[in-house]
């Protein structure tokens, strides 16, 4: 008995497509909140800047934003590789390097926030 399986098709990218849009909304919300906080406030001083990021709420929010950013960037950069980089070995190497880099960035962000 054979099972007919469709191994190609646009719907294979649906999860990524959706994830890119959900992370975009998260990042947009974070941008507006932080952008307004910076623009509306007085010129930033060291103490108030540190106090802002020392708040547990902002810390968690910021790390979540960085996770969303890494996820969002992964899908976008992967799309660019798929469009312009044809040799499989080169594309795979770049993809792995990108994932490692993005993981490192998220860890770096968390490290910065919890060393205040």
């Amino acid at each position, binding site marked *: 008995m054979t099972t007919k399986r469709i191994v190609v098709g646009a719907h294979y990218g649906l999860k990524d497509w959706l994830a890119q849009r959900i992370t975009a909304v998260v990042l947009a919300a974070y941008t507006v909140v932080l952008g307004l906080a910076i623009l509306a406030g007085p010129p930033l001083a*060291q103490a108030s800047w540190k106090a802002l990021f020392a708040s547990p709420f902002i810390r968690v929010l910021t790390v979540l934003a960085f996770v969303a950013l890494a996820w969002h*960037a992964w899908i976008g*950069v992967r799309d660019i590789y798929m469009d312009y980089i044809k040799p499989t070995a080169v594309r795979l190497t770049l993809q792995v390097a990108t994932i490692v880099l993005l993981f490192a960035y998220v860890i770096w962000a968390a490290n*910065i926030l919890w060393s205040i």
Partner: protein
Amino acid sequence: MSEAARGSGAAGARPRYRNIDVGQILQYRLPPAGIVSILHRASGAVLFLFGLPFLLYCLQLSLGPDAAFAKFKAMAANPLAKLVFLGLIWAYLHHFCAGIRYLLLDLHIGTEKDQARTSSFAVLAVSLALTLVFALKLFGAF
């Protein structure tokens, strides 16, 4: 099919691109939606390559001990650094505004040709205007 793809007898010497080639990039005459689109991709790439590590570096300095903060302050006071900041801010704001346009298009809002054209101009204008606001903040106007 678009006019450009068919070519046109009346326009005569209108260029026709059958197989696109990197060398022809500067000859393309993109519609506003095309300009917004390629800038969305280019700004995304720039933000990934330079913006993200630069942002983290600045965050580390600015939230670090006093010496690190002083280093950040000195760096941020440099007019050349301000221009780099501003370039990245523009890349971010363009990506942001174009992204909102795409989210709306995904929801089938503004998909008519003239609406899409208007929203393309809006993306370019709003992102530049917001960049100007940040430029004024950056150079200490308010």
